[in-house]
């Protein structure tokens, strides 16, 4: 008998791949489509082997983002569970009519008669000159629309469990995967809910418990934040790191509980500062937990400028573990950290997640 509790260490990409196989095995209603889904690259190998196993239910598509979204909606209101994928989030912006006017509204505007169980996988690029229109983090834009769910898993087991739950959710889910997470290693269980770290899709995860400050992260920033939190600990600062996982809805209970304990809040966001999810979290927690706060909450989000392309221009564009640690240190100790966290600056090229990454996208 197979021990379903056994964990194996695999990449985020392999975890997504396992989730797709599982979902398609479990139900004939699931089908997968997207430009390049069965091409030699297989969406960075996330759909590897899929078309061979399910030839009728995995298909490439015309370059028609808007209508292909609407076609997914049509199949979904007939009871199917389509999974669409785009190699960059930015391409999907052509589909905002179908996403906002139909997918998000259908269940409401027809009085709950029919929902739209559509999953939209969007890949967020970064670095190697991805530039202004291949690297946008628009989670706030999607989260703004009532009727949509938005998730950003950061670990392989979350990627697996949350993709499965997105597919089996009866609502449209925007599933955002950061390209720099694709090679992350982590343990997964055959059935993801058997993993000791398993949480339902709409729950935030307390990654590390702490007393002095709450740091809220999302997606790839969780990886940077873990490094920051480890260094803060060496300086005697106990940070509680919360990985949001679900951007819409937000697990306010977990955030409130943490802020009540620490009295300090730093929110990280991979999107532009104005109108960011971080801004919304800060304002909501100020409203709800004002009396618990010992200092003004802060956000670390991206500047209100597009990502430039040149290697030279992107040098100071992103923030990482060092900036997170500096900010948290300042908030807790009330003095500048100076050079304490300089070692957190990533060595090597700033525009790749690791030496393995050779581009082009």
């Amino acid at each position, binding site marked *: 008998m197979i021990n379903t509790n056994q964990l194996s260490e695999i990449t985020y990409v392999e975890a997504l791949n396992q989730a797709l196989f599982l979902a398609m095995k479990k139900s004939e209603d699931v089908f997968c489509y997207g430009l390049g889904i069965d091409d030699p690259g297989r969406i960075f190998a996330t759909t590897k082997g899929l078309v061979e196993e399910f030839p009728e239910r995995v298909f490439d598509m015309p370059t028609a983002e808007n209508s292909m979204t609407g076609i997914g909606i*049509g*199949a979904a209101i007939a009871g199917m569970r389509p999974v669409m994928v785009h190699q960059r989030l930015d391409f999907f912006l052509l589909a905002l009519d179908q996403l906002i006017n139909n997918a998000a509204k259908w269940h409401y505007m027809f009085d709950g008669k029919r*929902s739209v169980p559509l999953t939209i996988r969007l890949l967020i690029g970064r670095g190697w000159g991805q530039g202004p229109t291949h690297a946008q983090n628009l989670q706030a834009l999607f989260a703004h629309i009532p009727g949509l769910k938005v998730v950003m898993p950061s670990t392989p087991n979350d990627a697996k469990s949350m993709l499965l739950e997105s597919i089996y959710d009866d609502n449209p889910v925007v599933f955002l995967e950061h390209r720099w997470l694709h090679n992350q290693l982590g343990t997964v269980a055959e059935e993801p809910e058997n993993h000791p770290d398993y949480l339902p899709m709409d729950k935030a995860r307390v990654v590390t418990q702490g007393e002095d400050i709450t740091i809220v992260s999302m997606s790839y920033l969780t990886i940077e934040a873990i490094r920051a939190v480890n260094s803060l600990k060496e300086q005697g600062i106990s940070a509680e790191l919360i990985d949001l996982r679900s951007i819409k809805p937000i697990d306010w209970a977990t955030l409130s509980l943490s802020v009540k304990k620490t009295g300090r809040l730093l929110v990280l966001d991979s999107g532009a500062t104005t109108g960011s999810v971080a801004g919304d979290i800060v304002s909501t927690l100020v409203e709800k937990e004002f009396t618990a706060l010992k200092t003004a909450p802060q956000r670390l989000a991206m500047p209100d400028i597009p990502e430039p392309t040149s290697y030279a221009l992107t040098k100071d564009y992103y923030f990482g573990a060092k900036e997170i640690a500096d900010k948290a240190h300042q908030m807790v100790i009330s003095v500048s950290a100076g050079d304490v966290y300089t070692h957190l600056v990533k060595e090597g090229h700033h525009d790749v997640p690791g030496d393995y990454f050779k581009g082009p996208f």
Partner: protein
Amino acid sequence: MNTLIDNTQHQREILNKLYLIRDLEEKIAAHYSEGKMRCPTHLSIGQEGAPAALSVLLSDKDFAVSTHRAHAHYLAKGGCPNAMMAEIFGKATGCSGGRGGSMHLIDENVGFKGSTAIVGNTIPVGVGLALSQKMRKQDNLTVVYLGDGATEEGSFYESANFAVLKSLPVIFVCENNLYSVYTGLEKRQPKDRKIHQLAESIGLKSFHGDGNDVVQSYQIFQNAVNHIKQGNGPCFVELETYRWREHCGPNYDNHIGYRSEQEFLTWQQKEPIARFEQWLNENSQLSTNDFSASRANINTKIEQAFKFASESPFPKAHTMKNHVYSEQHND
């Protein structure tokens, strides 16, 4: 000509659908100014022919989606008149519980899967429904109603391309009424290019005819439906027609300057219902007496629909929060 609708049942059904759409909408127009139908309302008066002729060829398992001007499509498909009127009155018993109004009609019992208020945006939804029918090997089709304006939207080209690519069981029904709101076709599309020819060039089997000629429309739809049911892929049907009243609302608007009274009168002469009655008189066993009996019967139903709508309760204000998300599984 006299064998074009040789099915007596279809003759009666078409006639009843024409009466229902026309007389119900006339009643909406007559009462709209009372301020109880508080939503944008686009009347189909003058355009009843195509949906009436097509719908008798469909079953409840065939799907249809529609546009902002959806009353005729919904009613012809067999959609419940009570639920439609209650929806326009904003009542809890409305087909969309008062959340959608005139432009968001649904009756899944008869395969009417929804109408929406954005031009061109149900076209792909209909193609997706047809995709599900094909993937599930169902022997049914989907009707996508659209207007001439929607053939200017990218969604039309994208959807038509995919329908042809996958040979999906979908029939695009383009009611060309010459206007997109107040903007005439000649300002929007090249003069010598026909919409049905354009559709043909995408690879859709295309038909073209007089949408106010119910008999001709029926014949075209028979061919189109047969084409699809025999597995030959999607069709496009362009039918010329004319909306009598203003784009949105109950009034005539021939005086405001975007079209002429003469143009309207010319089209009124080509009115679909009287022409069909005349054809039936000459070619069927139905006579004027049957017409008036049917119409009286239909008007009783219309009275009931209005009574149902006006007597139904409004939804409670706090229920506005319901149904943003689904908590239940689709069947």
